[in-house]
C-alpha cells in the first residue's frame, strides 16, 4: 500500500465515520483542536481505522502520541510495514 493510498483511506475514515469535510483534512490538522475529537472519540477512530485497513491497533504508547493527521498516516504506515514484514 502506497503512502498516498494510506492518506486517502485515512481521510475517507474521517469523512465517512466522522462526517468531517474533505477540505479540513490536511496533514497538519490537529485531531483534537482542529477536527474536534476528544480523547474518548479515539476509541471510535481506532475501530474505524482497524476496519478500513484490516489491522489490529493495540492501545499502545504510540497511539497516545498521535496529535495530527500526519501522525496517523505515519502510524498506519508503520503498522502496515510491520505486518508485511511478518507475512514475508
Amino acid at each position: 500500500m502506497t503512502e498516498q493510498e494510506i492518506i486517502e483511506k485515512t481521510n475517507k475514515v474521517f469523512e465517512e465515520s466522522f462526517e468531517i469535510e474533505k477540505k479540513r483534512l490536511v496533514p497538519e490538522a490537529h485531531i483534537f483542536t482542529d477536527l474536534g475529537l476528544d480523547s474518548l472519540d479515539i476509541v471510535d477512530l481506532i475501530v474505524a481505522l482497524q476496519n478500513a485497513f484490516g489491522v489490529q491497533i493495540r492501545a499502545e504508547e504510540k497511539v497516545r502520541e498521535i496529535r495530527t493527521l500526519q501522525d496517523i498516516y505515519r502510524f498506519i504506515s508503520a503498522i502496515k510495514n510491520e505486518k508485511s514484514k511478518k507475512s514475508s
Partner: protein
Amino acid sequence: MTMPARFLLFVLNLYVYAFVLLISAVAIPALTLFVAFTRLFLSHRGTMKRFRRAISWYGKLITAIPYPFIRLRYEDRSKNGPGEPYIFVSNHRSASDAFLMCVLPHECVQIVNIWPFRIPVLGLYARLSGYLNIRSMSHEQFMSEAKELLSNGVSIIFFPEGTRSASRTMGSFHGAAFRLALESKAAVVPLCIAGNEHIPPKGSLLLRPGTIRVRRLPAIAWDDYKDLNAFTFKNRVWHIIENELSVMESGV
C-alpha cells in the same frame, strides 16, 4: 447608556436580587421542611422525586421575580409526552440557564462543572438532589450513575459546551451526553435558549431586561441515532440547535 437608563437598571437589579434573597430565605427552608416531612411517609426514591420537584418549584419562583422586566417563555415544539426519561441537550449562554430548566415538566438532574457545587446553599442542594459533577468522576463512574438515574425515570440535562459561550456563537460540544445516549438508548431532546446572553452577561451579575425563550425540539429516538458514533451524533445535534437558534433570533 444614559444616566436615567443606568439608574433604572440599577433599581431593577436591586429589586430582583433583594427578592431573590428574600424568597430564598423563605422558600428554601419551607421546601426543605416539605421534603423532610414527606420522608416520614415515602421511600428514598419517592422523597428524591419530591426533592427534585421542590427544586423545580424554587426555580419557578426565582424566574418569576423579574417579571415583567425579564420574561421567560417555554416553547414546546416536541409533542413528546412526559412519560419517559430524556437526555436534554442545551446551548449555554448565561449563568441563569440552570434556573431556566424549571420549565421542563420532568424530574431532572443537571450535569454540572465544579463551580456550581461551590455556590453556598444552592450547591449543597444540587449535590443532595443528585446533580452529577462530571469533572470529579471517572468516565465509567459517570456513565454508571447517569444510567442508573435514567433507569429510575430521571431525565438528565447537559450543557455540552461545557462553559458559557457568552455570545450568540455556540461553542463545540463535548461528547459525554451522546455517549450516554448511545449506551442507554435514551431519547435526546435538543433545547435552544435564546435572549439570555445579557441576563446576566458572562463575568457580570448585572441583569438586563429582555425575553428569554426556551424552545424544546422533538426528541431524537434511539432508532434515529443508533448507527452514529458519539462524534457524528454530537455534531448533528449541534447543527440542529444552531439552525433553530438562527430561526429564533430572526424572530420566529
